[in-house]
C-alpha cells in the first residue's frame, strides 16, 4: 500500500529524516515511536506532501508515485492524516466537519446527500453521533481528536496516519481509542500508521513497530521484539539523559 525508500528531509543543516525505508501493507497497524525530535512528525509531513522531501526520496501509494503530489491530491488518493496538535474546524459543527471530510477526500465527486450519509456513519463509528450539532471548538480535546479521526474516516481512506492521537487522554479514553483504531482496521479495512508516545497504547495495538532516532530508523519489529531490543532501550535512556 505505502512503500517508501530513502526518505530524507533537511532543515538547513539539520537532517530531520535521514534515509528511512518503510512499507505498510494492507490491513496493517504500524507504530512509529522515537524520542522527541526524532523526526516522526517530519516523516508524516513529507509523506503527505506538506513538506517537500529531498531529491532521492521515493514514495509510492497504491502503486502511484506521490512524491510530487500536493497534500490535497494525496488525501484524495486515500491517504489521510491527523495532527499532533488537533486541527478540527472549530467554528463548524461536528457534523459539518465530517461532511467536509466526506465531500473532498475522494477522487470521485459525491453528492451532498451521500457525503452526509458518510459523515453520519463516520461520527457513529467514533461515537460522536450525539454531538453532531455541537460547535467543534466546544468539544473537549479528547473528542476533538475523535472528530479529527472521523473527518478522515468519512472520506473512506485506505490508510490513515495518526500523530500522537492518544496524548493528553485519560487511561480510559486511551483504551477506547485503541479499540477504535483496531476496529478501523477490522471493520473498515483501513490501514494505520501511528506515531505514539504512550507505549502501552501502541504496544498493545500495533502489529509492527518502527523506531526512529535522530532521523534514522534504528529498529523495526513486533511490539515484543521492540520491547526487548537493547538498541531501543538505550535510545530512550539516552534521550532521557539529555532532557
Amino acid at each position, binding site marked *: 500500500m505505502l512503500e517508501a525508500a530513502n526518505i530524507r528531509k533537511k532543515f538547513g543543516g539539520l537532517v530531520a529524516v535521514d534515509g528511512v525505508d518503510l512499507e505498510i501493507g494492507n490491513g496493517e497497524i504500524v507504530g512509529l515511536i522515537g524520542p522527541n525530535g526524532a523526526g516522526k512528525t517530519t516523516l508524516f509531513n513529507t509523506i503527505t506532501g506538506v513538506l517537500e522531501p529531498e531529491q532521492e526520496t521515493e514514495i509510492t501509494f497504491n502503486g502511484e508515485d506521490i512524491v510530487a503530489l500536493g497534500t490535497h491530491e494525496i*488525501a484524495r488518493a486515500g491517504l489521510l492524516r491527523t495532527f499532533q496538535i488537533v486541527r478540527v474546524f472549530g*467554528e463548524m459543527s461536528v457534523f459539518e466537519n465530517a461532511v467536509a471530510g466526506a465531500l473532498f477526500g475522494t477522487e470521485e465527486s459525491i453528492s451532498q446527500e451521500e457525503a452526509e450519509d458518510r459523515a453520519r456513519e463516520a461520527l457513529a463509528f467514533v461515537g460522536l453521533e450525539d454531538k453532531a450539532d455541537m460547535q467543534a471548538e466546544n468539544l473537549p480535546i479528547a473528542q476533538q481528536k475523535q472528530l479529527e479521526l472521523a473527518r478522515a474516516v468519512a472520506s473512506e481512506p485506505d490508510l490513515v496516519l495518526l500523530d500522537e492521537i492518544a496524548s493528553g487522554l485519560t487511561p480510559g479514553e486511551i483504551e477506547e481509542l485503541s479499540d477504535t483504531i483496531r476496529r478501523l482496521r477490522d471493520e473498515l479495512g483501513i490501514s494505520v500508521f501511528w506515531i505514539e508516545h504512550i507505549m502501552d497504547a501502541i504496544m498493545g495495538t500495533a502489529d509492527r513497530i518502527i523506531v526512529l532516532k535522530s532521523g534514522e530508523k534504528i529498529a523495526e519489529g513486533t511490539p515484543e521484539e521492540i520491547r526487548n531490543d537493547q538498541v531501543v532501550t538505550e535510545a530512550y535512556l539516552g534521550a532521557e539523559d539529555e532532557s
Partner: protein
Amino acid sequence: MSDFLPGGRKLALVGLLFVLAPLPVMGSGYFVGVLSRTLLFALFAIALNIVFGHNDQLFLFMGGLGGIGAYTTALIADSVGVSAWLALPVAAVIAGLIGLSVSWISARRSFTVILISILTLNLQLVFSEAFIGARGLTGGSTGFPYELFTLSGIAEAAGVPTAVVIYYVILAFFLAAMVLYIWLINSKYGIAFEAIREDEMAAESIGIDVVRYKSIAGFIAGVIIAIAGTLLAREATYITPSIFTFLAVDVIALVVLIVGGIRQTYGPIVGAVIVEAIEAILGTYAANWRTAIFGALLILLFLYFRSGVIVKAQEFLEDRDVSLGGGNGGTAAVDTGGDG
C-alpha cells in the same frame, strides 16, 4: 423556492422592497441616484464578502477592477461595434481573470491577507494611472459620456426617466448576485471556503485544493466588481478615472461590508443602506469632509465593530429574548462568524 435556495423567501421580500422603493421618488433624479448607488455598493460589498469575508483575500483594487470593467465594456462596444450587453460579459470575464490571477499567485505563494492587500493596492494605483494615462482610449481625466445599453430608448418607450431604468437594471444584477452568493455559500464551495478560512493546512489535509478554491473566489469577485463598475459609470452617465479610485470605491465598499456584517448574507445591503444614508446627510452638511469621515469611520469599525449591525442587532434582541426568526441563508458556521 426555499428548497432550491435557502432563505429564498427572505430574498424575494428584499427584492420586492427594492422593486417598490423608487415609486414614491420616481421624479427625483437625486433620490433614484441614491437608491442606485446603494445597490451598486451592495454589489461591490457582495464581491468583497466572497473574496475577503469568506476567503481572507483583501482585494483593495475594486475601484481598478470596476474601471477595467467599465472601460473595457465601452471600448469593446465601440471598437467592435456590438451592443454593450455583449461587451459587458467579455469585460467581466477579463476582470474575473485578473482577480483569478491575483488569487492564484497569492495562494501559490501563501501570501497573508496583509500581503494581498498591499499587492492589490499597488495594482489599484497602477490601474488608476493607466486610466488617466491611456488618454487615447479613456479620454484621460476628462473621460467621456457613458450612455451604453440603450436604456434611454427603453425609458422613453416606458415613459419613465432613464435613471429609473438604470436603477432596475442594477437591481436585477444585485438580485442575481444575491442568488449566486446564497447558492455558493450553501454549496460545496461554501464548505470549502469555510474550511480554508479556518485552517488551510487542515483543509488541504482532507483533500481541499486551497489554490483552486481561492482562485475561484477571486474570479467570481472580479466578475461582480467589473459589472458593478460598469453600472457605476452608466449611473453617472459619464466616465472618468475619479469614479474608480481607492477612496471612491474600496473604502466605501469596505465600510459597507463591515457595517453590515462580514459573512452575513444581508450584510452588504444593510451596510449599503446605512452608508448611503450617511453619505446623503454628509453631502448636505459636510461634503468636503466626506473622505476624512469615511476613513475615520473605517478605522473605528475595524477597532470596535467588526461583527457588523446584523450580529449586533441579533445580540441585542437575544439579550431581550426576542428572536429575529428565519435563517438568513448561510450555514450555521457562516452565520455565527463575526469577530475575527
